[in-house]
């Protein structure tokens, strides 16, 4: 199962299929080119000119490098760090050589000698590997797992005590429902107390949410209405556990409990462009709303998503005059990849 361990394992090459890593490489290489251009020139105008010249040669090498690394990624990932790094450097040198030789005429190969170009390529590749390795050490498992654990969703004690109270009220009159409620409660707490650093499937998360909502239904009765739209949900999509449940808890706490009339929580999960979209919407009244606490849960989930998916996940919360909506987008990760 993919977990945070693989994303930031010190002493392993970076995952070249991660958008965040690719973006960093692109920006850094272009940054170095700009610095080189600035050093060679005397005016802004000339810097521009120099940069275009350098870019004409550097960009094709850069783009081809990224493509090559993305293709080789699964194989490179299995190698020990030093051997992997060595191979990446060799691949880069070979690529630089080929681009220079085959496309040399296009770029006016007179402007730089092959030896200098190879030296540049070597230095930049080495610097990038060292930088990315140091960055992954910085986000090392010890550190990010400590952060993850601190961030792990905590259920509101308010919910626990109210639920137990509701179960107590059923024990004498409706033993069957009391039993079911206790089963739901124990399932919920099993997940809450588990080690949640591993990803789980969307189906499991949805099941968990159903158990949670059953319990809330018990105390709130018809005041709580839930509309699920999950026919197009990719059931096997990998997702950090307890991303949905705390958001639903928020929706109940801020959207349903302060109302006397029934309110609908809308849950929409679908797959589009190989991305999983999760949209939760609940009614919201500014007046009589509970204080604080809401932002923290959302910030918490945003941070957990970024620890797992880096820039490939997003979370946006929108507050309208009478409703509140949270939209999450995560890449569609299939199990075992």
């Amino acid at each position, binding site marked *: 199962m993919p977990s945070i361990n693989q994303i930031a394992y010190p002493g392993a090459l970076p995952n070249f299929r991660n958008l965040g890593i690719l973006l960093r490489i692109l920006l850094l290489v272009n940054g170095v080119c700009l610095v080189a251009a600035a050093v060679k020139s005397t005016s802004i105008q000339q810097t521009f000119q120099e940069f275009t010249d350098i870019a004409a040669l550097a960009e094709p090498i850069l783009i081809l490098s990224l493509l090559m690394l993305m293709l080789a990624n699964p194989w490179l990932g299995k190698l020990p760090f030093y051997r992997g790094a060595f191979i990446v450097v060799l691949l880069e040198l070979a690529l630089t050589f080929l681009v220079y030789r085959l496309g040399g005429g296009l770029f006016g190969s007179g402007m730089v000698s092959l030896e200098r170009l190879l030296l540049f390529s070597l230095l930049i590749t080495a610097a990038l590997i060292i930088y990315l390795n140091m960055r992954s050490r910085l986000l090392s498992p010890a550190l990010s797992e400590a952060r993850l654990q601190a961030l792990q969703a905590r259920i509101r004690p308010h919910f626990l005590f109210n639920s137990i109270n509701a179960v107590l009220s059923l024990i004498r009159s409706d033993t069957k429902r009391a039993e079911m409620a206790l089963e739901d409660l124990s399932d919920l707490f099993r997940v809450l107390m588990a080690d949640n650093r591993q990803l789980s499937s969307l189906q499991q998360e949805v099941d968990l949410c159903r158990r949670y909502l059953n319990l809330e239904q018990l105390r709130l*009765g018809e005041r709580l209405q839930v509309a699920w739209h999950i026919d197009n949900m990719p059931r096997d999509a990998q997702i950090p556990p307890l991303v949905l449940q705390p958001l639903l808890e928020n929706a109940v706490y801020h959207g349903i409990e302060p109302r006397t009339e029934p309110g609908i929580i809308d849950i929409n999960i679908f797959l589009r462009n190989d991305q999983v979209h999760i949209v939760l919407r609940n009614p919201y009244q500014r007046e009589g709303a509970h204080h604080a606490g809401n932002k923290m849960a959302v910030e918490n989930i945003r941070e957990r998503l970024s620890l797992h998916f880096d820039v490939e996940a997003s979370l946006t919360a929108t507050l309208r005059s009478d409703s509140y909506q949270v939209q999450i987008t995560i890449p569609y990760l299939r199990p075992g990849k």
Partner: protein
Amino acid sequence: MTSPLRIMIVDDEAPARNRLKELLADCADSFPHQVVAEAANGREALELMSNNPADLLLLDIRMPEMDGIEVARHLLSLPQMPAVIFTTAYDLYAIQAFEVNAVDYLLKPVRGERLLGALQKARQNRPPGPAQLQKLSQRPRTYLSVQERGKIVLIPVCDIIYLKAELKYVTIRTHEREYLLEESLTNLEQEFKANFIRIHRNCLVAKDRITGFEKVAEDDGEAHWEVVLKGTEEKLPISRRQQYVVKEFAK
């Protein structure tokens, strides 16, 4: 021997009300009582009080529309304030405030023996007073209440145009009519400073009712400002000391 205690249960969650009823039934032998009414929110509880007066209310703190503490504050306007026992599942802020102000409360899930103990004490203890209850409140009231013919009349704060102190009373002015309230204007100003502004030593007006200002010449040649309000023909004078209000609103 006194007559059995009349109890009202107020909680927005039906299972929580059932649970309290069961527990009350359990201690009926050692503590004779009668559950006269159940309410699902604060307003309903106050309405029921006029037809089914209770001697004691079991009041949930967190309820939609009007919380338990506000209910207790409105009960104060009755000639005889009933006893109240607050119930809560978990609310750190409230629990601290209750401890500090020595007001009795029960934690949900409630234990039978704790409930019995609280019931026995409630008869002797004096109900919490206005100052105590104000300290427990986490936010301003959503209603003001006055007593008319033994009934509690609730006036939504958002319907109030202005509050004017006159001798012993404060006049509450809404679009329809006036009410007389026995509270100090200073306390009201403190509680509702987010929505009301003082324009005169004896007058607070609702900020969102102000539509404009007019300068009025006086006999001695000096002029003063008057505020024009939505919902009433009346124009209220602004005292010299509060003239900055005009500038603030002109922005």
